[in-house]
């Protein structure tokens, strides 16, 4: 089975996840201890706390490149200074380079912030994508707010290194799948190789909460319900009503599901709602109003272009592909001008992948979306398009104070591209995470090889 059409893959994936859940009591080894790593220690107050700490880096000056700062600005012949894991200063050619900085000539090249994918299942649906690895959908109940995606992440997924090396991805949100109306908590990771998930967790990132509209929950639960869109809404609304009661009470009896829902109602956990159709997104916005929470982003929002005004007014981002189309009924009205039309309406655009392959080329997907807009007369500057891959996803993930743009004091997460990042002919040349160079295309040893790949055909290949 080399390559199955996506709709078959999706069906198989959901099926095998359900089968897996049925025998989950046979699960393997427990999580690795994280207590001996990093600077933070796990505590009851912060379960599964991040143990990530930056790897060492040298004070560096990138000079001569075209800089897209991720916040919509472009600097030709720019200078980017970073040290101690942070951006120190970004400016033009005249910016003074302090002593002790390693100078990297970026003439003819481009610098962007690290690319951020707001929608990934790396680790939860890792490769090899065998049934034993299908850990992305706890497809045993239409609502599973109690599950946390991080407990499924396999840090050895080779997909992380491909996203780094080919996609320049430095941060990513791992979401539960879309089998359930409420799929559980997401986790935001820094794209660094690690023995443990805790070692990848983005320090201080808020949790996200995955919800799903439409066809997938309907299909997965068709025999036991909900089996219709009205059933979907009924289950959601009742669940929110019960959660509100819990949230308004003393919260003393631990209920993992309701803790998560209460976190959403408190505004601490950000809602990421898989939802394709415009009419259905509008219904979700009303449901959110009724229940008292905010939708941060609609994901796979292929019909956002029909309701750009509503999305702008509600301050909701649309996380989308450039041009996926036709694989299911709710994708039938997808158009490649979606991003440009959302942008034109003044609403927030994010280009996401939902794919271990697509995450390697988010820059190209953004370029396609930009060009489709230009052909219908909507011209969007390159620097603005880069924001769709950096600051906008960071904002929707609640980490825009730390990353997503090249601003003094932010994490030195960045990519030196060997050409225009909006061209098919360009690839990351070097990638830094918190100022540490974790990928260098000219140094075969600056390329992660996961435990799984050791001793296998192609170990350490350029991929």
């Amino acid at each position, binding site marked *: 089975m*080399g390559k*199955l059409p996506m709709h078959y893959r999706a069906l198989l994936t959901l099926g095998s996840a359900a089968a897996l859940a049925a025998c989950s009591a046979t699960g393997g080894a427990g999580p690795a201890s994280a207590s001996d790593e990093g600077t933070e220690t796990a505590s009851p107050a912060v379960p599964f706390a991040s143990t990530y700490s930056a790897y060492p880096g040298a004070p560096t000056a990138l000079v001569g490149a075209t800089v897209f700062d991720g916040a919509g600005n472009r600097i030709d012949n720019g200078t980017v200074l970073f040290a101690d894991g942070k951006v120190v200063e970004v400016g033009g050619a005249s910016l003074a380079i302090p002593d002790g900085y390693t100078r990297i000539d970026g003439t003819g090249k481009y610098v962007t912030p690290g690319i951020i994918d707001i929608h990934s299942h790396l680790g939860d649906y890792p490769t090899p994508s065998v049934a034993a690895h299908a850990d992305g959908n706890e497809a045993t109940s239409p609502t599973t707010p109690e599950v946390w995606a991080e407990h499924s992440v396999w840090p050895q997924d080779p997909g992380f290194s491909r996203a780094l090396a080919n996609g320049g991805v430095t941060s990513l949100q791992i979401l539960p799948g879309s089998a359930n109306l409420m799929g559980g908590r997401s986790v935001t990771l820094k794209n660094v190789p690690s023995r443990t998930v805790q070692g990848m967790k983005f320090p201080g990132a808020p949790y996200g909460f995955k919800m799903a509209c439409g066809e997938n929950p309907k299909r997965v639960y068709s025999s036991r319900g909900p089996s219709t869109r009205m059933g979907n809404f009924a289950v959601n609304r009742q669940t929110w009503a019960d959660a509100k009661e819990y949230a308004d009470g003393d919260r003393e009896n631990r209920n993992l599901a309701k803790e998560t829902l209460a976190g959403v109602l408190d505004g601490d956990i950000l809602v990421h709602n898989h939802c394709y159709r415009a009419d259905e997104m509008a219904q979700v916005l009303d449901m959110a109003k009724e229940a008292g929470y905010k939708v941060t982003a609609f994901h796979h929002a292929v019909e956002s272009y029909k309701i750009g005004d509503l999305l702008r007014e509600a301050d909701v981002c649309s996380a989308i592909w450039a041009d996926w189309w036709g694989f299911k009924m709710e994708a039938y009205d997808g158009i490649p001008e979606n991003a440009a039309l959302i942008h034109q309406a003044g609403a927030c655009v994010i280009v996401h992948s939902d794919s271990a392959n697509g995450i390697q080329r988010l820059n190209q997907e953004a370029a396609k979306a930009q060009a489709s807009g230009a052909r219908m007369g909507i011209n969007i500057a390159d620097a603005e398009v880069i924001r769709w891959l950096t600051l906008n996803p960071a904002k929707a993930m609640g980490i825009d104070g730390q990353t997503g743009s090249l601003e003094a004091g932010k994490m030195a997460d960045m990519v030196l591209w060997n*050409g225009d990042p909006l061209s098919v002919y360009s690839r990351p040349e070097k990638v830094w995470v918190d100022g540490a160079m974790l990928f260098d295309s000219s140094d075969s040893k600056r390329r992660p090889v996961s435990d799984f*790949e050791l001793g296998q055909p192609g170990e350490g290949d350029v991929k």
Partner: protein
Amino acid sequence: MNIARTFTATLFAGLLASTAASANAQDLAFTNATVVIGDGSEPISGGTVVVRGGKVVAAGANVTVPADIPYTDVAGRWITPGLVVALTDVGIYDVGAVSGSNDTSGGSGPFNAALDIAPAINPEAQQMKLARAGGVTRASVVTNARGSIFAGQGAVVDTGADPDAVMKARAFQYVELGEGGARLAGGSRVAAHVYLRNAMREARAFAAGTWEGEEAMLTRADAAALGAVVSGKQRLYVEVERASDIRIVLGLGREFPKLDIVLVGASEGWMVANDIAAAGVPVIADALDDLPQNFEQLGATQSNVGRMVDAGVEVSIGRIFGEEIPAYVTQYAGNLVALNNVPGATGLTWGEAFATISSVPAKISGIGGKAGVLKAGAVGDIVIWDGDPLEVSTAPVSVYIDGVKQPLDSHQSRLRERYRDLDESDLPKAYDW
């Protein structure tokens, strides 16, 4: 003709519209073009393309436009042959997850090798429209294997806006080996190989008139269909990924010497590239597979295509299914060019990359020299682009199939026009059409 000479690039789109309306739409000439022949050679600037009666007359530098054909100065725009996608599901589904609209899977009925996709092809399918709007004018269409390792017989189609889509029915047989074939055959590669060999022997017996129906595994229709494969009259596409599986497939020729094999997939082809080249077997590969998607693809790398081409293998990229649309092939080819700037990676030259989505898939599909190239006698499939066709920001400006200018609209383009604005102050959007 003198009037045509005075048109400038800014009037270009308008001119093409008027050409389409004229009676002699099939006699076309374009000058001052960046011409891509499609045969692996590099683009030619200042070139000319001449089409008469739906066929290419000449293309390249130093081509003279016949006096009776009006020509258009395209001001440096790129002109290529129509793209050819080596394997896709264009025209055999409307919506992937809507099973009633979907003929992409052979089904679980009694027949397998005998399945013939041609009657299922719908020239009005939206993917047909999206494919041609993306510059894809020819494709090989095939179902997935489901009931056995044999998926059935694929067809070569054109994407033209006319009822006559099937160019060549029963163009090839498709068999799945490797992990997928193992699953279909009962759970192991061992079972798949017995199934394959038994089927070939029964087909041979059927052709020789010695087939014993009651004793046979195959249905009569499947045995009859495989006769064309075992006699070498019909190509056998073999889906296989692992290096060791590829070696076994290359060895099938010793047992069944007339088999005309095409490898499909071959993620680990680079590991046995010299063997593939020596066997003279072409490959239809995924351009960008670089993950160990399963255990038969542990060695997957984006350098696979480049390394095989360097070893002398004839490689087409393609295999576009599901959420992918056929026009993605240009992006995939462009990515292979990009690898040339990645130390340690093996990419393709621009011309080589374009050939993987034009002349090479045409040749593999049995329409070599007829499609995928701008050479005398080839079909008049001409695409004029708004930039470098392998660049992600580029799209066709005009598409001709058999010299006929094609409409580029679709369900998608109509939605785009309806939702240019969200104004419903006078009437709902439903009246905006």
